[in-house]
């Protein structure tokens, strides 16, 4: 009975946010005739997909007590490198692996500096946000590269029985990673490190290695996302992913993830992604300046942090 009560309590947040999403969808369909159109739903899904993919590693790094600000730049970087690998080998599949590897490589660099050299995560990933973007621009000379290979673009454009492939992939990823976070030794260790890193060290957990893993995950997911983005645009763009790290953080914070670390759930992040994507989408459809979206993102973040902070204090 106790555990049931606790389960309901923790799911209250999810319930509330799901309710909000339903209200938002209904309200939006009234606010604009275009909201439920196929074209708009596609836009919404694309936007949400990028956020959803990146919300997974962002949740992991936040819970471990860190964060990754380089993912946006990494998406562009991985896309470009992956394309070059494809061009060099002539094989699109190897090219896609190249995307994952390039993203993972940046992840390794982040992870070593943060986990082993103990440099502040904010500083390291912020620096890499600049370094990686600069590298991408240098390699491409600032130009967009056209990509027409059907295999390479499958993730971005393909669908099975009318359902976009990316959606299926996201569902699968969320199921796997939710289970990993909640029920695996690795996941438990991540909560421990975020909760009290010193205690985790005393308890024999290999904290440095696990922190490295979270950033490699972050990098590789950026790589995965780059495959999707390239496929979507049929091109590798050096400015892809701009601002993704910021939006992802807003999304997971909206879902209830704490920046301080040590607690949180992947499902919270997912709901945050959905709600944010809907809000931004409807704002885009309304006859107002597109710049309001920018303001909205910041306002939502402050609002979420404030409300969750209040709720927590009321609980104590």
């Amino acid at each position, binding site marked *: 009975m106790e555990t049931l009560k606790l389960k309901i309590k923790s799911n209250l947040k999810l319930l509330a946010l799901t309710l909000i999403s339903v209200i938002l969808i209904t309200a939006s369909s009234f606010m604009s005739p275009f909201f439920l159109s196929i074209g708009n739903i596609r836009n919404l899904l694309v936007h949400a997909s990028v956020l959803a993919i990146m919300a997974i590693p962002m949740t992991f790094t936040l819970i471990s007590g860190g964060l990754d600000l380089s993912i946006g730049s990494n998406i562009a970087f991985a896309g470009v490198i992956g394309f070059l690998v494809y061009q060099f080998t002539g094989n699109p599949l190897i090219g896609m692996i190249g995307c994952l590897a390039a993203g993972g490589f940046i992840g390794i660099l982040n992870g070593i500096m943060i986990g082993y050299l103990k440099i502040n995560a904010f500083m390291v990933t912020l620096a890499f946000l600049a370094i990686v973007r600069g590298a991408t621009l240098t390699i491409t000379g600032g130009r967009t590269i056209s990509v027409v290979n059907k295999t390479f673009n499958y993730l971005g454009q393909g669908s099975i029985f009318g359902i976009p492939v990316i959606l299926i992939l996201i569902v699968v990823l969320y199921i796997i990673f939710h289970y990993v976070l909640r029920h695996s030794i690795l996941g438990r260790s991540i909560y421990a490190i975020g909760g009290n890193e010193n205690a985790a060290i005393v308890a*024999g957990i290999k904290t440095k290695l696990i922190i490295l893993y979270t950033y490699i995950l972050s990098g590789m997911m950026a790589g995965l996302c780059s495959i999707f983005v390239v496929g979507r645009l049929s091109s590798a763009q050096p400015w892809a992913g701009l601002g993704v790290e910021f939006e992802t953080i807003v999304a997971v914070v909206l879902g209830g993830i704490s920046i301080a670390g040590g607690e949180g759930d992947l499902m919270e992040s997912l709901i945050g992604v959905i709600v944010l994507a809907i809000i931004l989408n409807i704002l885009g459809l309304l006859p107002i300046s597109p710049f309001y979206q920018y303001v909205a993102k910041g306002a939502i973040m402050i609002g979420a942090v404030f409300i969750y902070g209040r709720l927590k204090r009321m609980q104590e």
Partner: protein
Amino acid sequence: MIQNINYDIKNKSVIKKEILKEGKKLKVVNISKSFPGVKALNNVSLEFKSGEIHALVGENGAGKSTLVKIISGVYIKDNGEIYINDEIVEITYPRIASDLGISVIHQEFSLIPELNIAQNIFLGIELANFGGFKLNKKEMHKRSRDILESLDFYVDTKATIYHLSVSEQQTVEIAKALIRDSWLFIMDEPTSALSEKEVKFLFNIIKNLAQKGATIIYISHHLEEVFEISDVVTVLRDGSVVGTNETSSLDQHKVANLMVGKDVNVMFSRKRRQKLGRVVLEVKELTKKGFFKDISFNVREGEVLGLSGLLGSGRSELCRGIYGLDKVDAGDIYLDGQKVRFNSPLNAMKKGVLYSPSDRKKEGIISLMPCDENLTIMSLHWISFLGWIKNKFQLNISKDIIKSLGIKASSVKQKVLNLSGGNQQKVLIGKCLTRMPKVLILDDPTRGIDVGAKEEIYKIIEKLTEEGVAIIIISPEIPELIGISDRVLTFLNGKIINEYSYHEIDQEKILSDILIESE
């Protein structure tokens, strides 16, 4: 580091009379102070006279720190009065204390490293013209120089604090106090970071200050220093004054006696086993530069080895070194006769050596996690299958430990943050038990918990010894160690001073070992 102080004491009285205004006396009457669960001061009445160096001694938790914090405005007393020259004063804020002429010279200095000496001395009381717009730097430097010269410290006042040695910084701190017309100087463990020469230099300053009428309160664990510098000694124990005597009428052993109390009330006396098992852990000449040197001892199955010593005597560092948390420079460790080297806590845990840290908030519990997850954090692979945690195993193990240790929690899922201190401590021990330890090292396991909870911890230790676990326990409370240990090792400055077997254990001897440096 620039060494500007000439440490050859000329023994001249160097303080210009104008710098120290007329001395005053401070009297505290019936001061009490309580914190949740602890009565830190109990009707303390003392008098600190002008021109007198008055030492305050007592064990950790005796109340010395609390008393001076009340006098300096950091804490507010629960009741009692404070008088300066027989006039009652209310010291509710540190600024009020410093305005009244009370200064504290801490262990950690309140100087700003990036600013220079004059700026620090005049911090908050800068001299300026034109209504505060133009700083009169020339005058501030001149006055700073004068004050420092009176303390026999010749230095360029434009030097930044960062470049000064500890002793030099301390002298600047004293100058800071003097310039604010302080007449009461509270020195809290002022010699912990000083060399012998620097200590003598400091003592000369203190003696000169006293000669000019200053009132000095001197807190120290180093009894030999207390005897060298003070005129009067007050011993505090458990928040009460045990006695105030002229230093000349006492000796170090008498003071040590007063600190602990002649009636050794051993709260808990463990049933000792007649026969102990074989040697389980043996360490030989363990050394870590700056922390401990040539440590050798052994522990047997079912034995409790108590480590006594002051903070910084090396016991915790030693145990962390054995557990693989910190590096050890030299020496060997033998487990069951086999030579081992623990490079990480994981290695130690795998071989059955477990450690429960002294600071449970910092290194022990993961506050946001529920009980069952905290309890199983050291044995994740035992509650999982192929890397996936099985809730059933986690639940079973947690329930077992909660039951056998008597942890009071509303459910296995209660966050450890919400448990009482005693129960949190049990969680720490419980964590280690999930690994079936051969050797269990407990670092201050009864810190900050009430008497009832302490008894429960002792009973747990007793039960573990019956099961053959070898226990090493570090504790600042000597009666506790005596009640629970089969043998006691005394530590001072990183070395083992003595070993006492059960019938040899003597509270006074232990205390003098850990406090008094032998020649």
